[in-house]
């Protein structure tokens, strides 16, 4: 294992390099989701019938999942708080709770999609359902990625190592949460 290069230890801006990198990562992610959402909104405006299709989504499940993500974001904040005070074990514990939220979100999503697919609302049914599954699917892949990274960060934090990463993965998790805050009304509620 090589030591970190001098480059990594410098900070001309005063901002830790890892945090800078996460912000740039989020900037690139924002435009990816921005592209999906802009395409969807343009279609939505041009196709009033999308509202009828959207009526077949399950708002209760969607709302429940929104709450799950919001609560998991709170756990991520607690993890960050622990990491700031040097409590690696506490940070790991709260990260595991956050991952629990991610798993819960994915389980609920699976049930929801199973119900919809069994009613014939598949990804190829029409353009609305194509967007529905694609947008939520890209989001879900970010949930999975976030959960894996959190487990990895927690495995270091448990030993009191690389505690700054707790904050970075937390930033990412808040972003994943925020994307859902946009997706939920656009896909489920807007008539």
């Amino acid at each position, binding site marked *: 294992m*090589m030591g970190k290069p001098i480059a990594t230890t410098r900070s001309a801006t005063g901002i830790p390099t890892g945090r*800078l990198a996460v912000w740039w990562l989020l900037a690139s992610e924002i*435009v990816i989701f921005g592209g999906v959402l802009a395409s969807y909104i343009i279609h939505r405006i041009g196709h009033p019938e999308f509202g009828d299709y959207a009526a077949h989504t399950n708002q209760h499940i969607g709302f429940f999942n929104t709450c799950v993500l919001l609560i998991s974001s709170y756990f991520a904040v607690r993890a960050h708080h622990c990491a700031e005070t040097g409590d690696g074990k506490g940070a790991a514990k709260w990260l595991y709770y956050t991952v629990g939220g991610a798993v819960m979100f994915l389980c609920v999503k699976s049930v929801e999609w199973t119900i919809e697919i069994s009613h014939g609302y598949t990804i190829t049914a029409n353009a609305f359902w*194509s967007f529905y599954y694609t947008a939520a699917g890209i989001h879900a892949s970010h949930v999975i990625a976030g959960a894996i990274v959190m487990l990895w960060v927690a495995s270091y934090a448990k030993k009191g190592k690389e505690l700054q990463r707790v904050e970075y993965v937390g930033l990412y998790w808040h972003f994943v949460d925020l994307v859902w805050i946009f997706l939920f009304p656009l896909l489920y509620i807007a008539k």
Partner: protein
Amino acid sequence: MAHPITEQQAPHGHADAHHDDHHHEQSFWSKYVFSVDHKIIGMQYMFTGMFMAIIGGFFAYAFRMQLAFPGMSVPGWGHVSPAEYNSLVTNHGTIMIFWVAMPVLIAAFGNFLIPLMLGCDDMVFPRLNRLSYQIFLLSAIVLLASFVVENGGFGGAWTAYPPLSAKAEYSLTPLGSTLWVIAVALEFVAFLMGGINFITTMMNSRAPGMKMWDIPVVVWMIVLASILFMLSVGPLIAGAIMLLFDQTIGTGFFDPARGGDPVLWQHLFWFFGHPEVYVVLLPAIGIVCEIVPIFARKKLFAYKTVLFTAFATGVLSFFVWAHHQFIAGIDPRMANVFTVTTVMISVPLAEMMFVIVATLYGGQITLSVPMLWALSFIGEFIIGGITGIFLGASGSDIYFHDTYFVLAHFHYTFFPIAIIGVYAGLTHWYPKMFGRMLNETLGKIHFWGTIIPFNMIFIPLFLLGLAGQHRRIWSYVNFPELASPEMQNLRVFATVSLVIMLLFQLVFIFNFFWSLTRGKKAGRNPYNANTLEWVAPSPPGHGNFAEMPTVYRGPYEYSRPDRDEDFWPQNVPAESSSS
């Protein structure tokens, strides 16, 4: 003239202590294949890019031969079928932009130069850097694989407009088009990772004393290009996923019969595709801005103006994309807006050209090989820029759209970027990369053997375009108004010029490998240049600098009247100035 390198103890001197630990013997695999060293990764990008350039050039040869001698069996290829022609044209464009211009101009020069010019030992995330190259290599392999699958490679043009690209029954390349989308998407991921590395390295890892306005222009340009890429590619990544789903699982995002919209793809594509022009242009201009002050022995004229015009170009580049779609059925009022923004964006670019010309004014110009490339960049790019105004104005574009006028125009922009810019950078930094000088005579033969045929290829294509010759046509034999002997002669002329130009590239390849062992030893600073990479040994070892440099001034202090020497390296403190 040898200059004593002032060894400065960096404030981070304590961090240097663990530095020597790295100098253990590494195996071939860990040193050259799985290296995390920015210089090796830069070389990997460069050699991969050059390999892909050979393929892209060979494709151009094959389809140009078909156009000059329709139906003839092309030596080295054989008979070019219409489907093969489409695939060759598509992948020539794809390769030259995504697998040559980007890896060499941004990734190779960025990886090699950024840590050296900023005075640090590596990128801030070396392992992320290695992963970026590995994903890039994978993307190249996927693209190459797409040529040999059943029904051949994708033939729906590098812009991949649906519905042609979205359905196998239209594209006739069910697997080829899917592999093409996957390869392009992987390439984007690789450059997003590399870009985050470049941006954070520039922001955080500069040598002590190096302020924002002390950063060499080429570093700025590569970082700005990375930011532009990052902010423009997102919608196309989303679009690529949608296109992939249309191809593979039968969604209808771009299928009007099922509520989709094919023009949406054009918006997503060009929202990225036009900034992409500047993504590759800015690093090329940065390279020119490094070379010209050194070989004119003059301070770069208006350093900050160059940067502000680059910022302006970057911002404006997000508002010009629909000039590619004037005949795609967009609202004519929108066409007016995009005409105005497109004409506006030529102002900052013209200003950059003026800055370079002003740097030359009154300088002691040496026409070395890198300088010849740098100067020819300006001359050739201006032709590309000026012909662009005719295409940016919707009135004339309606006539020129999809003719060879467009094709010649963007080759007059992309050739200066991807070929001239690359050769300028390669010949300039070759001594630093390999520790030897290239042969100047061979370099000049190669330069003239490239530049003259290049103009001989594309000036006839302007004329053919003005005469109405449409793009993406396999053979003009069946178009009586385009099959006249005069037009066919121009096609033959362009094709022969291309073959001459390709043959002259052998001179460069020979020079490159011959000079690796036979070239004159370069020493640290063969050009008496100021920027920090010339402080390091040639080639720089692991960790780059024996002592990490400290910076005292900007990068272009040449021929100052108050100094005996005509250069003043960034790391030399003021008190030791008079020698």
